[in-house]
């Protein structure tokens, strides 16, 4: 079988993920994996074998960074375990040191009633609040990305795209900004040459985009190099898609919303390089899940079109959208929508308030998940 030429690198968000997370079944909703979701959508547009076989065209590659947190928490747990053995002989000292010891061992152990905090929120707080952890994650994902690209760089017709979700959108933004500004490569290229001429992604799809809210520099965020361009040797990608759902508070409370006139060059404004996709359907309680997003034709249609660079006929697109809307009536999940609307009106003007609102949002979604199950 010929090697699939279109390589798509997926970067996950908060929560626990295995190394091959795109093949893990989503615990809520239809219970499909991301790969299954995409393969199912692919079949909707296969009149006359339009795109060819999925496996012949798309190479889906999961990238992950959970192992950074796992290693850190395991290190603390191991240090504490050794310390506890010694502390057994010093009850007075043990009592004094107990608060510190509990803090150090908590992330690895968690507690049943605070499990969500340790599996989701803590990782986010470490990433956002500590530049050392952030630096390690960015370097690690950058190495995974470049290592994967290097296996196929230079093969004729092979292309590279990135899909990031939730906290992963912030990671990817920082990875790309770092790679495009890395001083070292000036030694390899003629002075002043942009990395864009050497390596440019076909599509950067940011789903539930938190890159702006997790940026330490709100005023400078839209002045980074991470933007699309139709000029061949500019921009990090030919197309950038910003995808959100109106009920997804993770991305909608502090949305990624660049000032188009200043952010895009004149050519790119005309050439449809930036897609701002806002979906409105709720087809499963976990509206934030990446699989929920890709169920919607408004998301998977531009994904296929821009990665493969082949247009889907309008009639096929319309049919898929009609079928999707018919199977997910607007009245569905009415109560959940009401409560999500209520949450959306909360003040999220600071990161702590944003994190609080995000926690309540996810708790609400999970409560409906349990009810649906």
């Amino acid at each position, binding site marked *: 079988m010929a090697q699939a*030429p279109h390589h798509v690198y997926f970067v996950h968000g908060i929560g626990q993920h295995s190394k091959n997370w795109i093949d893990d079944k989503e615990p809520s909703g239809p219970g499909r994996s991301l790969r299954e979701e995409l393969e199912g959508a692919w079949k909707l547009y296969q009149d006359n*074998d339009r*795109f*060819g076989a999925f496996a012949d*065209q798309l190479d889906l590659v999961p990238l992950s960074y959970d192992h950074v947190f796992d290693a850190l928490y395991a*290190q*603390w747990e191991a240090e504490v375990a*050794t*310390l506890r053995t*010694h*502390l057994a*002989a010093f009850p*007075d000292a043990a009592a004094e*040191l107990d608060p*510190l*010891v509990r803090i*150090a061992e908590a992330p690895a152990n968690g507690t049943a009633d605070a499990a969500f905090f340790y599996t989701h929120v803590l990782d986010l707080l470490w990433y956002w609040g*500590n*530049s*050392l952890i952030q*630096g*390690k994650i*960015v*370097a*690690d994902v*950058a*190495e995974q990305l*470049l*290592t994967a690209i290097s296996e196929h*760089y*230079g*093969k*004729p*017709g092979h292309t590279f795209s990135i899909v990031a979700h939730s906290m992963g959108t912030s990671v990817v933004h*920082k990875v790309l900004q770092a*790679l495009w*500004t*890395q*001083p070292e*490569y000036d030694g*390899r290229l003629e002075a002043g*040459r*942009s*990395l864009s*001429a*050497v*390596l440019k992604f076909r599509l950067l799809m940011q789903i539930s985009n938190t890159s702006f809210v997790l940026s*330490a*520099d709100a005023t*400078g965020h839209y002045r980074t190099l991470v933007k699309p361009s*139709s*000029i*061949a*040797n*500019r921009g990090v990608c030919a197309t950038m898609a910003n995808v959100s759902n109106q009920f997804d508070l993770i991305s909608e409370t502090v949305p990624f919303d660049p000032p188009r006139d200043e952010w895009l060059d004149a*050519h790119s404004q005309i*050439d449809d390089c930036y897609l701002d996709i806002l979906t409105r359907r709720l087809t499963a309680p976990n509206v934030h899940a990446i699989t929920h997003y890709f169920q919607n034709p408004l998301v998977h249609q531009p994904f296929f*079109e821009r990665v493969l*660079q082949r*247009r889907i006929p309008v009639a096929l697109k319309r049919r898929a959208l009609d079928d999707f809307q018919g199977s997910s009536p607007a009245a569905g999940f009415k109560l959940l929508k009401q409560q999500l609307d209520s949450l959306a009106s909360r003040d999220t003007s600071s990161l702590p308030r944003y994190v609080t609102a995000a926690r309540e949002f996810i708790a609400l979604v999970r409560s409906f998940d349990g009810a649906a199950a």
Partner: protein
Amino acid sequence: MSPVRSLTLVLALGLLPGLPAAADCVAGLTAPDPQSFWDVLESADLDACRRRSVQAQLGSLGPGSGDAPDSDRLIIVWQALVDQWDGAAPAAPAPLSELYAALGQRAAAAVQFLRQRGSAGQDFALPSVWAIDFNGNLGAVAGADEQLLAPAIPVRRLLTGACAAEGDACPQAFADGDAVLEHILLANGIGARLGQPTVSGLLDKVAEVNADWDRFLFDSKAMYPWSLWLTDVVNRRRNDYAHRHGLLEPPDTQYFLLHPAPGFGFVHAADDGDQLAPTVYVELLGFNRWRARYLTGVSAIVEYADRAGVEDVSYGALFTFANRYSVGVTAGGGEVGVTLGLDLANLYRDRLQPQIRRIRAGAR
């Protein structure tokens, strides 16, 4: 390059009298009408056919060099593309002649750059400039001053126009379009030969930085969460992410705050049997220079031990060697003691003590 070497290379590459003939992936296929022309031309099967053909042509160039692409070989292929397109332009019908002329100009800029390094057209020889976008264009090319060096080339529009000019079906435009797309793919491929060292070099640098982070976080002196916080705070100005270029690299110094650790201490003044005892010490404040080779860290410590005859609590200084082995000097109640961190104590037990025993046994 000498004329003999040039000719030898050209013969070896099979590039005389010009580029290898395109694979003619459309042979035997029914020519499309103008409405379906581009969809058919860009279909999965034809795309795969062209990729195989170009892969074979790139293979005939020999393996790419990781560090120093052979510009001589690349110039020959670029020049062949220039000759192909410039040669075809005058005789081609109107939309195609415009396309060939634009492609020839773009390829000529690549040749000029490779022959005269430092010219303004450096990016013309790189792959992104030879990638057709979603709108069917080769994108415009910008210079260092952000002025455009070359306009976009509307490949799809011009090829589709050639098909429409031919009639309800366009076998000639179909074949010409297939050849053009294959040669653009070839240009993209040889552009990637030039770009390969950049990707490899960047990967080497990224891997080096990531390895440093692993050493800093996991292979040097372990930091508890609050020490990680303190180290970040101390380096906050340096780590100001928004204003940096490139990957953040780990700071040279780790800082420690209230860092508890197990050890063994010796106080000569303690009662017999209690002189050597397990201890727990807390580094109140300290630092560790994790890249240093020998003495890496110094901390102020308070130590707890349960010994008869001396104070349980003593204060002192701890010295860390090679990120791991710590020895301290403490004083409490007027008595001086020596503390070994657990790693150093274990090193003594596992490595040094057996050697000492062997030496003593040998001496006897």
